[in-house]
């Protein structure tokens, strides 16, 4: 079966309806994590975290290795006892409820497909433990295998399957019990690039079709941004920022989050005046005399040093000084450039000595490079692209 056909065939027949339950003050979160901590001897893996996840969300917990995300996932699944705090799912406190009695199922990073059972037996295992009648199990297993396109492989043993196929078995096995929450531990990590992209779309469609709340744990920021309705950035056992992918990418709250996603430029700036009511801040850029404006709700005293963050793709390079309102403008020379075909990456040495990264789409067809090393250029960006970070 052609993989391409597979994806279009899977696309949901439900018309897309955008929902943002996290903005609704009356919405009750489906998963409530309150004050959750896990202490291992001298090491605090999860440090007093709070989180609300709404029904039907695809939520991702994102962080590097050692940040505590796996421990958090295991506490949700019931494999670790919290040292403190509560996990409430659909109104029921999960305290002391062992993994086998929780309405949660998990897709493991290693897939954990039972090697001594066939695909059918693997997928039907959960239903067998629920003492469902044999006929029912057979029907439901068949349906699920067709859904994940493993119908032909029902009687195969796992060691005859590819990694991608084993993942589908793990997914089918976890979904067949129609859990309230599905946990996914690094679902795309073991896949090669092409398979990763396909699986990404399949997961999103599957989740939307079934309406099950997904909680994904990953270290891959691209995966997190493409899959999630919302995500939380985790470090050293704590959540640093929670929000939609656009929120965390465009409005990071600190350097850590800003730096976590893609590349970003950091500038030092000295505050001239700040007006929290009008949400306006003006500052001097890197002691160059250049004045810039930014949207900020925070209040700063004049003279405070702040960090201004600007994404490389927001910056426009021009050889003439640009005209316009609400622009932050600075000058520099081209120090490095890398041509990627669809875009070019520039490293510009600014007047203040800082190296600024700029990403420009090559929207015009030309065989000659538009800019060369040592060219003098103007860099400009809309002032709304200035992100004020206090730390």
């Amino acid at each position, binding site marked *: 079966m052609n993989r391409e056909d597979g994806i279009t065939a899977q696309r949901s027949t439900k018309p897309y309806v955008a929902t943002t339950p996290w903005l609704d003050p009356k919405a009750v979160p489906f998963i409530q994590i309150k004050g959750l901590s896990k202490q291992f001897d001298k090491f605090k893996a999860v440090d007093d975290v709070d989180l609300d996840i709404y029904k039907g969300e695809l939520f991702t917990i994102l962080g590097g290795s050692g940040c505590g995300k796996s421990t958090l996932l295991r506490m949700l699944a019931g494999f670790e006892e919290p040292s403190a705090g509560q996990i409430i799912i659909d109104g*029921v406190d999960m*305290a*002391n*409820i*062992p993994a086998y*009695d929780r*309405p949660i199922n998990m897709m493991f990073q290693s897939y954990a497909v039972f090697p001594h059972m066939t695909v059918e037996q693997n997928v039907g295992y959960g*239903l067998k433990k*629920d003492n*469902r009648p044999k006929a029912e199990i057979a029907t439901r297993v068949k349906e699920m295998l067709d859904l994940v396109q493993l119908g032909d492989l029902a009687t195969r043993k796992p060691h005859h399957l590819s990694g991608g196929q084993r993942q589908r078995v793990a997914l089918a096995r976890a979904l067949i*019990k*129609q*859990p*309230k929450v599905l946990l996914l531990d690094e679902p795309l990590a073991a896949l090669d690039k092409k398979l990763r992209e396909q699986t990404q779309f399949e997961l999103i469609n599957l989740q939307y079709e079934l309406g099950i709340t997904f909680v994904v744990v990953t270290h891959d920021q691209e995966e997190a941004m493409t899959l999630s309705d919302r995500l939380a950035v985790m470090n050293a056992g704590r959540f640093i920022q929670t929000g939609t992918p656009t929120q965390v990418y465009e409005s990071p709250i600190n350097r850590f989050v800003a730096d976590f996603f893609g590349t970003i430029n950091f500038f030092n700036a000295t505050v001239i005046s700040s007006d929290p009511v009008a949400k306006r801040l003006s500052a001097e850029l890197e002691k160059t005399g250049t004045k810039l404006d930014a949207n900020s709700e925070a209040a700063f005293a004049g003279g405070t040093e702040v960090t201004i963050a600007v994404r490389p793709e927001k910056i426009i390079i021009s050889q003439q000084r640009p005209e316009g309102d609400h622009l932050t403008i600075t000058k520099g020379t081209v120090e490095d450039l890398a041509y990627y075909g669809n875009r070019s990456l520039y490293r510009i040495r600014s007047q203040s000595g800082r190296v600024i990264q700029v990403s420009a789409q090559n929207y015009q067809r030309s065989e000659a490079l538009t800019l060369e090393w040592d060219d003098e250029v103007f860099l400009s960006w809309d002032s709304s692209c200035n992100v004020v970070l206090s730390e």
Partner: protein
Amino acid sequence: MNKARQTIKKPYRQPLGDKIWRNFVIGVPYLWLLLFFLAPFAIVLKISFATPIVALPPFTPLLDLSANAGHWLLATWDNYRFLTEDNLYWISYFKSIKIAAISTFICLLIGYPMAYGIARATATTRNILLMLVILPFWTSFLLRVYAWMGLLGKNGIVNSLLVDLGLIDIPLQMLYTDIAVYLGIVYTYIPFMILPLYATLEKMDTSLHDAAADLGAKPWQTFIDVTLPLSKPGIIAGSLLVFIPAIGEYVIPALLGGIDSLMIGRTLYDEFFVNRDWPLAAAVATLLLIIVVIPIMLFQRSQQEKE
């Protein structure tokens, strides 16, 4: 929709079946070992304080609650006093430790290169060699010691060969000597040395050797600086697996040793079966237990470190 499992009764109570299973799996082997392994040591200790009598069982009970007894506690230090006074026992204990230690060392000398060679072999050769090491272990230990009797006897193979080759005139006394005991112990216990050593050496990262060589170490230096220290867990496990049981070995000194090849296992056995002095045998056993307790704890520690 499978509602039955998804709704959880409040408040949640752990099903009884889970607790029963857990207690069963933990409790049964634990209780068995307590009853048939640990508790017996307490009994040995108790009987070591008794006096041998002609009765069934042939020792006095610990408590005599009948009215005409002078003391109600019939314990005596006599057995231990006897142990410390009679030289036979001191000699047996020391000789046992000495023989066990030397045998362990010889096992290490022979076993280490063998384990090393097997670990370095190709996969198929390795499996064949391992099978060859394990094979004698699965055949009767008693019969293999018996084989040495045939080899070392006055009319045995070795002597006949030496006489036929003209190297000696009269047959050598090899059987019933200390040398025979050493041979017997090394022969029997060497698989116990090879297997843990092999396990450690096999797991060793060969890139460490390459790194050392790359940094200028000659083969001998690589061995002493890298291989030997990293094989320490195997050396310790193998040595303890030989040393501790060898101290209390009975069969080998009984079949291959002479009258002055005094090992404590044999002394204990004779005390029990020949002299029928149960309390004295119990005292010998208690003392032996005290001697081996520390190496045993070392062994337990080395096993736990593996986890």
